[in-house]
Structure formats: C-alpha cells, structure tokens
C-alpha cells in the first residue's frame, strides 16, 4: 500500500511540472489557437536563466535561512521576467505578422522558433547535461513508510498557487476580461475597444513567465538540465493541456497531474513499465478524446475545435 502512495507522490510532483508548462500552452491556444511548440524550450530557457543567475551570485551549494529565501526569490523572479520577455518577443517577431495567415504557417514558425531556442541553448552550455546547483535543502519526511521531500511539496504547491493566481487574474482583472473577450471573438473584442495586440502579448508574457518558474523548479527538483529538455516536457505538457481541455486553466492543471500520476502508476504496476508508461499515457489521451473530444473540462465551443 505504501508503494502505491509513494508512487502517487512521485506522480503528483512530476505532474506539477507538466501542469506549470501546460498552463502556458493552454493560454496561448485559448487566445490565438496556436500550438506554441517553442513553449517547451522557453521552459528549458527558464532553467538556463536560473542557472546563470545562481552562477552569477556564486551559489553552488545548499543555502539556509534568509539567504535561501532571498536567492530563491531573486532567481525565480529573474527566470520569470526573462522568460516572459522572451515569450513576448517571440510573439512580436515570429507570430504577430502571421496572425491572419493560414494556421499551418504559424505552426511551422513555432517549430522554427523551437529550433532556434534549442540551438542557442546548445551553443550556450554545450550538448551535454549540466548540473544544477542544489540550492534548497531537501529534508525528507517519512509518513507511514512514504517519503515526501521538501522539493516535492515545493513543486506541487507552486503549481497550485500559480494556477489559482492565474485563475483569479483571468476572472477578476480588467486585462483578464480582455483576454477572455479576445479568446471568444478577436474581431468583436477589437470593435469593443480592446487592444488585441497588447492582450495577446500579455498572454504570451504570463504563459512564458509560468514556464520560467517551471524551469527554475525543475532545475532544483532534478539538479540537472540540458538544452533538449524542453522537447519531451513540452510534448507531455501539450498532451496535458489537450487532456484537460485546451483553453481551460483548471483543465491544464488537472491534465498535468493526471499524466504524472498515470506515468508513475503505469511504471509501478506494468511489467517493464518504464518503457510502457508513455504508451499508457497516450492511450488514455486517445480514449478521453474519443468520448470527450474537447477534453475533460473543455467546453465544446465550435471555434475552439
């Protein structure tokens, strides 16, 4: 029994990272119906930025007390700002001019941006895995035979906090309202006096900032990164967004946690489960889409499908 609970903990913390990335996917898709394939690489860029900040501060080991809080806050803010700016820049340079082009054009551009980011990061730190300083002490509590580490709690908590904040932002602020309006009907929103360009840039900025936070957390959680990290993680996060209902914030979070859980459970209970876990994840996705084509929490708006 405690193995099952342990795997649930593992699955939730893995899912927390997927969920943070999925939020960005789902926001961008919700507003301009673009699958932003560069998003996974923005996430890795967040890890790289965090690494640069920590290296710049001369941090290489565990920190305690106020130093810990200060450094973590500074790094996470720096990663979020850099990635947010990067996301906005990508929108401005790569996607804006293609907004009214056939949908295939921005999609291919997104893949191109993904290539560029991967290669920039490869030039930056080389093609090999890089160690990430283990800044946060990792006390592990054992409850009834189940190990829960501080880092796991951090990942899960951060995902939940970010989702709640995002949900509040979208439903309780003026710009959030503008985002919802733009998502529903861009032209009508413009006619109502909403600055569509600003709204879309803000969407990219927030989505990418969340990816930056996820990048920092994944660096701390795994103690490791490499330039190609975002490809696999981005794919899983995209799947999470689709599973939960793309365009839906709570759905993205639910999808992320579900995929993490399915992976962990499949690994545990299927013989040679490690290599079958992806098969199980995508089988579940196919089944869900057969019975609920718009995802678990997706609304069946015709223009979203």
């Amino acid at each position, binding site marked *: 029994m405690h193995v099952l609970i342990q795997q649930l903990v593992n699955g939730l913390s*893995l899912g927390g990272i997927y969920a943070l990335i999925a939020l960005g996917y789902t926001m961008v898709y919700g507003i301009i119906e673009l699958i932003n394939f560069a998003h996974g690489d923005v996430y890795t860029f967040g890890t790289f930025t965090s690494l640069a900040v920590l290296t710049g501060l001369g941090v290489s080991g565990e920190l305690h007390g106020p130093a810990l809080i200060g450094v973590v806050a500074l790094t996470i803010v720096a990663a979020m700002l850099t990635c947010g700016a990067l996301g906005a820049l990508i929108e401005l340079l790569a996607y804006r001019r293609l907004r009214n082009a056939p949908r295939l054009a921005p999609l291919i551009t997104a893949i191109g941006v993904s290539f560029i980011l991967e*290669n920039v990061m490869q030039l930056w730190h080389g093609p090999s*895995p890089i160690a990430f300083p283990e800044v946060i002490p*990792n006390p592990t509590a054992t409850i009834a035979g189940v*190990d829960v580490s501080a880092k796991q709690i951090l990942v899960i908590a951060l995902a939940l906090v970010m989702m709640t904040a995002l949900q509040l932002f979208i439903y309780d602020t003026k710009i959030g309202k503008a985002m919802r309006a733009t998502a529903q009907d861009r032209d009508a929103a413009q006619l109502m006096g909403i600055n569509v360009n600003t709204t879309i840039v803000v969407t990219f900025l927030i989505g990418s900032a969340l990816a930056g936070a996820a990048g920092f957390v994944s660096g701390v959680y*795994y103690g*490791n990164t490499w330039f190609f990290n975002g490809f696999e993680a981005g794919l899983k996060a995209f799947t999470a967004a689709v599973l939960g209902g793309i365009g839906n914030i709570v759905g993205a979070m639910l999808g992320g946690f579900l995929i993490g859980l399915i992976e962990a459970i499949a690994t545990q209970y299927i013989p040679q489960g490690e290599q079958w876990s*992806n098969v199980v994840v995508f089988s579940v996705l196919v089944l869900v889409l057969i019975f609920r084509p718009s995802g678990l929490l997706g609304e069946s708006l015709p223009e979203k499908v």
Partner: protein
Amino acid sequence: MVRTGGFARLAVLTAVAFSTACSSSSTTSTSSQSTSSDAPSGATIKIGIDLPLSGGDAAQGIPTRNGAVLAVEEANAKGVPGGFKFVAYDLDDAVQGAHDPAQGAQNVKTFVADDAVLAMVGPFNSSVAKAQIPISNDAGLAQISPAATNPTLTKPPDAVKLRTSHPDTNTFFRVCTTDDRQGAAGAQFARKLGLKKAFIVDDNETYGKGLADVFEAQFKAAGGTVLGHEHLTKGQADFKALLTKAHALGPDLVFYGGTTVTGGALLRKQMGDTGLGAVTFLGGDGISDTEFLKSAGAGANGSYYTVAAPETSKLPSATAFVKAYEKRWNTDVGPYSANAYTAAEIEIAAIEKSLASNGGKMPDRAAVLSAVAATKGFASPIGAVGFDPNGDTTAPILSVYKIANGKANFIEQIVLKV
C-alpha cells in the same frame, strides 16, 4: 536530438560526397605511383592506420595512433630482416569532427590500392568497422582494431554476413574485449562484492541493452537474483517512479547498461531521492567519462564501472611501453594507446615471419593474414595476446573503477576465462 539530427546528417552527407570525390582522385594517383615505382617501393612496407584523427574524436584517436606509430618506429630501430623499412601510413576517418563509416571504407580502399600496405591497424569505432570489413575481406588485408567492441563484428552469424567476398576467411581481429564480456566481467565483479539482488536498467540502445542482457544472464548464472530489468525511454528525465518500484523490491545493486547522456547520470542522481542512495551502482564503459562525474554530482561517489581495456599504469608488462610512449610523445598514455601498440606489434611480427619464410622477399597479404590469424601467446604490454577463430582476443582483460571524491580510481583487473 531527433530533430537536429536531420540537418547534421545532411551536412555530413554533403561533406562525404565532397571528400569522397576528392579522395577517390587521390586514390588513383597513389596506385599509379606505386605501380610506376615498383622497384623502390619494395624496400618499404607500410602499416595502414585508420582512426578518427580530427575533431572531437581526435581526443581518442591521436593517442591511439601514437601507440601504433611507436611500435613501427621501434621495429625500424631494431632493424627489419631483408633491409626493409616500415612506414606508418595513417589516414583520418573523421568527417566534420566525428568518425564516419563512409570515410573509413574509403580509407581502406586507399590502403588496398597501395601494394606496399600489408596490414592495417584500426578502426576505432564499431560502426566504421562494419563498413570496412567487407573491403578488407575482399582484398585479404589483415586489420586489427584496438577499440571496436561490438560483438557482432566477429561473432557468427552476423560477422559472416560482413565477410561478403570470402565468407570463410576472416580479416578482422581485435585486441580489445567485447561488450558481452564486459557484461560478464560486471556480473563477476558484483558477485565478488557479495551482491545478490540486482535491479537492471538499460537505455534500450544497441550498446546498453546488449550489455545489460549479458549482465543479467551472467549474474543469474553466478548465483545472483535479478529483481527486474527495465528499459528507459529516450528523452525521459524523471526516473523516480522507476526507482521507487526498484526500491520496493529491495535490491542491493542497480546495474545500468547505457551511456551517461542516455540516462546514467540522472538515474544515479535520483537514486539518492528514492531511498536507494546507499545501494551499489554499477555500469559499463558508457559512464566512464567526466560528464558522469559532473552530472551525477555527489551521487556519483561510490559508483563502479567496468572498461573493456587493461589499465596500463597498473600492468607490470606495460611499464616499458608507458616509459617509451611518454618519452616519444611527451604526453600521458591514452586509454587505447597500448592496444594500438600491441596491434601494430602483432602485424609487424607477422610480416617479419612471412618475410623469413619467403626468403627475405616482400611477402603477399595472404601470408601476413595467416600469420596474424595464427597469433598465440604474443607477449605485449597488455599481456599475452592471441586470437580465436573469430578474430577475438583470447586474453580478455577488463578493468574496474570506483568513483570516490569525484574522481575515478582503478580498483582491479578482471581476466575472464574464455
């Protein structure tokens, strides 16, 4: 990597097309030279050397070549019967910085076209060997590899398919051991440490899975229990679920077949997070690099790995070689320098033997080949070397290393019984 690979391959193909065009023209000029100047070339016998000598692979290739060149120079200093002189004829099989099978094949064609080349040392990489064996087999040119470890190069039935022109004749030999023996050595070593329950993980690639499969069979044969054998998926970075599963089974050993980049370092690192920190970790030469030390961090300490070559600094038979090498090249011996030295020495001995039986006249390649194949108990820096009918060394020596304080330390030599 999948997506960037396409571009890289295209670039390499273009480069190969170019360099093939260039070197085919140089091939014709070389062969026309040797036919026109037949008489003076009788005084020279060339030992072909094919290794990656440029780009990232040069770090391995150059020290290896230096070993072979040293053997040639020593033979000349001693004097060759019949007044002949040996020449080390080295060609680079790297294209754009990495070993390239097509270039390696082209190099062997160049050797074959030169009548003065009686035998060759190389290649370094198994993929290059696969492209070269059909050509050396066709020409009957003996080649000894210092470092290619893939079992299918020598073992039937796969090896026979490579011998396209003369399936009954083998021209490919090697002085390194093979990955299947490396798995066996790992199993033997693990049992020696008193470990009984292994959990095996591999990266599902040719090298890693092959190594892990042999380890599993040998570990069971040696009385150990295998609790599970799992395969990693490319690109995966989170192995906590897998390791939790392993932890629940209570192993005293985690064996990893694969390389650092395909998951070795992360796996080792995450063992600490899943209650397996104190469990022994053992791998093959895929994790025998500084990347593993860096990426696995403090977790790397206490890990073991095997390497399919002897540690020359610890071999009494290699002291003279190590001294001579350092004097000649002013650098440290590379991991495969002694193997290349031995490969060249075996070829030189075979050529001198064929010279003697041919009355001091230039022998043909067939005579040299059969002399190489007949090598038995040849005293070399890496011990007594001989070849079995497949062309594999009969003296499979492996080394075990343990990582402590972020450094790999030599532990012991394993000599397998064949």
